[in-house]
């Protein structure tokens, strides 16, 4: 031990405690002798123990106290006794049998208390319970008498001096404790740790050294000390600063922070901007027209049914400029080279308001808007959007009825399926996912359609990342678009969960996420 260093590092609380340790060996006498608060004394003891200046011995024992119901029964009596006396006192003329409802009312008990009492009294043969009615037995009357005389074991126990040490119970008390533990909140057992301590040899040395060393040490440097020069002695030499143990723990702090999901949005925005995309946005409440019809999703498509889509009890209005063109591609393909769906397109279905099921609704609003000013919006064009989408699902541990989608499209001459792969690969490379493969899939409004899967190292398997495709000629025809448009959409939460190591979407989005996590989450590295 470096005697001087250890002595210098003593905290004021340790200095206050040390002189009393020769005589005080447990906390109460130490608190009394030092005049410190218990919490302060305990902190000082903890530090001294860590430095090896005191030796601490801990012993554990169990004590028993009355709990919530115990306290209530002590003053107001046990529910089973009330139960019994209710039968005895009020049902003489009805053959001593009462229904549980009558008993509950007459004894003024909770429903749960009635149930507990019923079981208990049956097991003690204090009542007979037949045809939904309880009547008292001789045994029961005996029980009541004992209670009146305050002679029952339970009552005797209730009048003990609490807390009671579990190791010194009499056999009678033991019987009551065992019975009460089976019942709700009558007694509570607690483990108590007693601590005794004494100075070690080092402790004795430090104590001796402390009393001879200078007490005029600087604790905190104050503006006043700097101004007056009080940090120097008369000879202009610097006074001693109390040495801090730099490894002592400091209380934790947290700061204000952005939400992890929003940081993922930011990163994605950054990537699209880096690659020359413009941002777009659109409304959450959409007409079925923009959400489905505008991109050639057939009017009888299963995804339009109630179980997937939130239909709102309103009718919106349709964009006059596109109604006929969209109707035509649905009905007979229009000029797109398609045979169409061969049905009569119903504008009423398209007017229904929905919560958008995908951000592709916003893409098609943008395509339509651009087609109204073709000169300003000549290809090539690149857009992205990050927005909320909705699925009519019940809330449970892994599903939320809303989440976020990132959508992007490129409109440009000569774009191919391989370019679609290239842009998707590049995006994920920048998000830190490099092992990608592609699989053909089906979307009503893209052909070819393609999914990308990414290899998740932690899970050791491929997971679906993104849905994509080239918009069908039927989807583009109403907006006069003659060049290929490649497009994609991906769920953000799933990616955010991967980045932040969460396996439940509700930890990432919604009001059930943990504020402590929002304060302390680890920064994600690229």
């Amino acid at each position: 031990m470096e005697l001087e260093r250890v002595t210098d590092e003593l905290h004021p609380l340790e200095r206050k405690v040390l002189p009393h340790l020769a005589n005080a060996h447990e906390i109460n006498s130490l608190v009394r002798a030092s005049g410190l608060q218990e919490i302060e004394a305990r902190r000082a003891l903890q530090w001294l123990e860590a430095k090896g200046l005191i030796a601490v011995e801990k012993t554990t024992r169990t004590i028993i106290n009355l709990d919530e119901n115990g306290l209530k029964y002590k003053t107001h009596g046990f529910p089973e006794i009330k139960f019994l006396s209710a039968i005895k006192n009020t049902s003489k003329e009805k053959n001593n049998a009462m229904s549980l409802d009558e008993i509950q009312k007459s004894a003024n008990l909770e429903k749960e208390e009635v149930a507990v009492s019923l079981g208990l009294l049956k097991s003690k043969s204090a009542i007979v319970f037949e045809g939904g009615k309880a009547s008292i037995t001789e045994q029961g009357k005996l029980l009541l008498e004992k209670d009146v005389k305050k002679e029952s074991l339970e009552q005797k126990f209730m009048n003990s001096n609490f807390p009671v040490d579990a190791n010194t119970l009499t056999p009678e008390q033991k019987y009551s404790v065992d019975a009460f533990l089976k019942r709700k909140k009558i007694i509570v057992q607690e483990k108590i740790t007693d601590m005794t301590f004494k100075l070690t040899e080092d402790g004795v040395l430090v104590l001796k050294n402390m009393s001879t060393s200078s007490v005029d040490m600087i604790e905190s440097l104050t503006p006043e000390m700097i101004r007056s020069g009080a940090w120097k002695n008369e000879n202009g030499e610097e006074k001693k600063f109390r040495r801090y143990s730099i490894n002592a723990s400091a209380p934790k702090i947290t700061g204000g922070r952005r939400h992890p999901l929003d940081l993922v949005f930011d990163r994605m925005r950054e990537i699209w901007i880096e690659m020359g995309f413009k941002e777009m946005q659109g409304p959450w409440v959409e007409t079925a027209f923009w959400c489905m019809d505008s991109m050639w999703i057939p009017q009888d498509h299963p995804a339009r049914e109630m179980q997937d889509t939130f239909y709102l009890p309103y009718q919106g209005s349709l964009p006059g400029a596109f109604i006929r063109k969209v109707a035509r591609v649905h009905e007979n393909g229009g000029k797109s080279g398609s045979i169409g769906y061969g049905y009569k397109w119903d504008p009423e279905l398209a007017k229904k308001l929905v919560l958008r099921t995908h951000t592709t609704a916003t893409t098609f609003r943008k395509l339509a808007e651009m087609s109204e000013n073709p000169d300003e919006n000549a290809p090539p064009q690149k857009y992205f959007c990050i927005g909320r989408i909705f699925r009519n699902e019940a809330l449970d541990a892994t599903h939320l009825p809303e989440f976020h989608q990132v959508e992007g499209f490129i409109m440009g001459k000569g774009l191919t399926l391989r370019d679609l792969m290239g842009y998707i690969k590049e995006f994920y490379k920048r998000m830190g996912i490099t092992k990608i493969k592609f699989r053909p899939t089906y979307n009503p409004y893209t052909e070819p359609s393609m999914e990308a899967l990414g290899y998740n190292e932690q899970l050791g398997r491929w997971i679906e990342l993104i849905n994509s495709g080239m918009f069908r000629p039927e989807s583009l025809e109403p907006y006069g678009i003659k060049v290929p448009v490649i497009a994609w959409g991906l769920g953000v939460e799933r990616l955010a969960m991967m980045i932040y190591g969460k396996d439940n979407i509700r930890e990432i989005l919604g009001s059930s996420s943990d504020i402590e996590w929002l304060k302390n989450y680890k920064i994600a590295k690229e």
Partner: protein
Amino acid sequence: MVTFDVNFRELRSAIGKDITEQELDGVLFDMGMELEEVKGDDVKISITPDRPDMLSLHGLARALRAYMSIKPGIPKYNIVPSDVQIIIDKSVANVRPYTASAIIDNLKFTDDKIKEIIWVQEKLHQTFARGRKKSSIGIYPMEKIKPHIYYFAEDPKKVKFHPLGAEKEMNGIEILRNHPTGKEFAHLLDGCKKFPFFKDATGNILSMPPIINSEMTGRVTEQTTSVFIECSGWDFNASKQLLNILVAVFQDMGGTIKSVELHYPDKVIVSPNFTPMYRTVYVKDINKIIGTSLSADECKKLLERMMYDVVIKEAGFGGSDESGTGKFPDKDAVLEVSIPAFRTDIWHDIDIIDDVARAYGFNKMEPTLTLVSTTGALLKETKQEEIIKNIIVGLGYNQAFTLSLTSTDDQFGKMNLPELPHIRLGTTAEKSLNMIRLWLTPELIKFLANNRNKPYPQRVFEVADIISPNSEKDVLSENKKKISVVSAHPTANFTEIKQIFEYLMNINGIEFTLQESSHGSFVSGRCAEVLVDGKKVGIFGELHPKILENWGIEMPIVALELDFDMFM
């Protein structure tokens, strides 16, 4: 995705090749399907809903045989004429006007095959037939039927028969009311005065489509060797396609297809019709879309692996007016493609081009990053939102992300407010939701309520959209951005929230006035309404203890909610 279970052994034997699990997994993946699970011989496969023709052991095996070059090209269907007529009465015109029918002979049913047929019928009803709405399938043992067959509509009270699974005869109305299948599909005959029926020459009722067959003439057993199939509904084309899908499966099971004559009031049609559909596709267009440089011959081979037949022809001019970017060996070649009659997903050349890509293999293509030169730009709102969020974070607040779907109880009831105009939800799977949020603060309070056992102070904020009704818009509403800031700790008070409010306003250089408000959520006398140019743009103050009690929070909270627009 539609998933189905097949027996691996049977699938191998139907394909005619002893493929391994890895091979199957790879081929399914390349075609756009998924091998979900393998447990011994039990295999779970999911396919995309646009290929109902693959939705059976035999249908899938047929596609795999072609894809794996075991039997490429369009499958051949030999149809023998029968003299059976289906006489369609004009009375069905207003109920389910169309039927397409066929007879299959020489069947050898086993229990497994019957199960497969029932399963395929069920899945086709659910998917392609849209819950029997478009069309519905009936299959009958031909031995029990005396031709010709009549399709007619009649008052359902007047027609009685013994439906499958029932104990006794019932009339049409009783079936819809009391039979389980009747109850499930009763909505399909809503508002019909007459119901459609099939009967044979002896007058025996075969079925009441789209509901149920008769027990007497409509139950296929292991003794059945010949069946009558009808697909009836609102759409002749869909009924025909549905029939073709089924008939193809029956032939693959070893049956012989026999045609019937459909006698409509105004025309006679021979059914089934397996004449392929035709499309002319330019090789140039294929390469332009996929980004390949395939020759006409390569395209032909790839398409044959997708069950097409292809004839290569010379075209006088290009396939489209766009000039290609590369030089193609078969620049002017045209493919005449015959499409199997059971394909329901070919609307456009693009669908054939997609099949070329599937046969080629997506993962054999090298991704390209063609530089499309455009300039990037964030929305103005995004940039400003970013600045505001970072300022609030600087004040020690944590950003929260709450849901926008909520309830009138959370938005108004628990906040001690009368119901304000808002956008309601229709029928929801989650019963606790009935509106889209009109303000953010209640959702942040919900967040604090969920975190009531966590250490205080809790300071959170959100900048996000709410939905405000607006009858001028095509969607009767609009997204509006709001800022909400809430602080919960033992000494939270009016001054604290006012400091934040004034700081935000001052650094944005916005002049404002405050007026006392009697807003139900706040303590009266400790709530300020914010006015900018005479317009209400926000509110802040100390939340009323009643509100805290409603949310079960035992901590004072101060809150601020502002329109975002003024910061733009």
